[in-house]
């Protein structure tokens, strides 16, 4: 099938799919149009990676959501944060205690006037902000008080602050959409047991 001439493969797609592809990406090479068209037809693969909403804002695939925040820094804010990130060699290992964060990054934009914070995390962020406010308020406020308008992690305005600065992703892909951080840890623990068993078996 994939050996076939791309023109022929494109013609073999259902007419509705061809029309949608032609309309949205008329200027693309036919080889790429075929790829996109075939993906649209393969319901099983797309269903597994279906993109839904992460509650109030943001995209979610399976259990995993994305959050991108762009916020204005206070004067001197970038410098203060850089000193902190340097102290820890840019290593945010402590974030592991949150238990839902797959990754996160801090990026300075526009001559250190803005900060981009991006993360992939399990579930929805909204319910857990309250837990951050009583479990790790010092850390949250130390980092985010460098932003203009940060109301403080215990403030009732904090969710609004985040929502208004969050830029939702238009497209979102997660390789294993159902593997939460907790599930990853469980599988890793199981694998250690399995490997030990196999080693002892021989």
């Amino acid at each position, binding site marked *: 099938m994939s050996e076939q001439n791309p023109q022929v493969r494109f013609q073999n797609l259902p007419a509705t799919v061809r029309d949608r592809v032609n309309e949205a990406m008329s200027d693309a090479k036919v080889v790429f149009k075929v790829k996109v068209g075939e993906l649209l037809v393969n319901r099983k693969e797309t269903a597994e990676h279906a993109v839904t909403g992460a509650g109030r804002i943001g995209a979610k695939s399976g259990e995993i959501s994305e959050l991108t925040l762009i916020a204005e820094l206070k004067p001197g804010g970038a410098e203060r944060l850089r000193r902190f990130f340097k102290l820890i060699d840019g290593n945010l290992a402590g974030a592991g205690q949150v238990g839902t964060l797959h990754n996160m990054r801090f990026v300075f934009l526009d001559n250190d006037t803005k900060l981009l914070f991006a993360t992939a995390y399990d579930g929805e962020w909204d319910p857990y902000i309250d837990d951050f406010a009583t479990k790790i308020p010092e850390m949250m406020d130390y980092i985010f008080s460098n932003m203009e308008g940060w109301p403080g992690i215990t403030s009732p305005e904090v969710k609004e602050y985040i929502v208004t600065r969050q830029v939702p992703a238009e497209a979102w892909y997660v390789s294993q959409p159902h593997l939460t951080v*907790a599930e990853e840890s469980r599988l890793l623990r199981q694998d250690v047991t399995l490997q030990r068993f196999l080693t002892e078996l021989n």
Partner: protein
Amino acid sequence: MNVFRRLTRRPSLELDDIQATVLRARPEPYFGTHAILEITDPGGGRELLRRLAPLVPSAAHWDEPRASWLALALSYHGLEALGVPEGTLASFPANFRAGMAARAERLRDTGPNAPANWEFPFGTPHVHVAVTIFADSETAWRNEVAAYERQLHDLAGVRLLSHQDFGATGFNVFGYRDGFSQPVVEGSGAERLPGGGRPVKAGEFVLGYPSETGQALPAPGPDVLGRNGTYVVFRKYHSHVAAFNRFLHDNARTEAERELLAAKLVGRWRSGAPLALAPEADNPALGEDSRQINNFGYRDDPRGLRTPLGSHIRRMNPRDGKLEVLSDVNIRRIIRRSTSYGQPLPATDLRDDRESRGLDFIALGARAIDNVEFLQSEWVNSGNFTGLGKEKDPLISLQDKGAYFTVPGSPPRRIQNIQSFNTLLGGEYFFMPSLSAINWLSR
């Protein structure tokens, strides 16, 4: 069991302004009624509040038995129907204003539990006022209902939408002792019972006091309206007791095995005795002893060999157990004032008799709405927080096809085909005003 705690410290809360139900335990046995009213004319609504105000006792002397009492709460539509000013309406939190039905996605109320399948009047904009009467005897109950109905009798501008009686001995329709585990509210003066956890800041349960964050949680304004008030989450469940009994029969051979499985699902034997203290066999004396019934934690049982990680009480209050996700268990506590209705079905009955029976789940607290939304999505309909993946609460979740329950052990036992044993018939979010706020609203 004596469900009344003793008052061992001087209360620092304004007890004479807080509604009795916030701190007063329901008696055992108990009798009562939940009524839902619609306000069709603002003047009539205000008159209703004026007339009912004298029937709503305060939380002063909450530790002393009382024959009967009445509790009153308002939905967002109810506040609108009373003609409360726009600025005040806007000062309420978004989920309260939206109402429970609109929050179905967050609450995971889908399929059979979806608002489209609810009983009238739940989920309609007609639900305005909730009145609950609690009593310790049938006579006291009848008298209190009569007193309340006299006030309603010739009142124009108010319509009765539903009237549901309830009552039980302290055991719910599945036969479990229920409703005794409660947080200790700091400043209430309540004695601490062994294992009950440290007192939780008053602001978690009553508006206007410092919460666990150190500050008061947001409250509606003006101060006279918000202070000493709280929120109420009401969820009426129909219980499928015969299906529950069949599940036990299908998965255990002897009565002893069935009772052990029943205990594993909840985390307690039907007597109330916790698995943590009575892991092998029931010890009914523990269930009768208010100083022992909660005298445990989960730290020494990390794998759930005694109390399964997925059992109802370990999910709903993980105490000192280690969780996979950063969580503050002290901000997730709720005051439970749930009531059972209908006749219990004996454990030997495997056929559905189609009788109406179940539980009116009632949670109170300054965060009650946020917390029930949190519990429903994170701790009831998911297992991720405790390392159980997609496994759900065995008692109150909406189970998918192919759902299972894991009983930890060596080897663990995975019990297939667990069903939903409780179906939601409807629910509402309410605000429970202080006595001075009832007065303010009635003017």
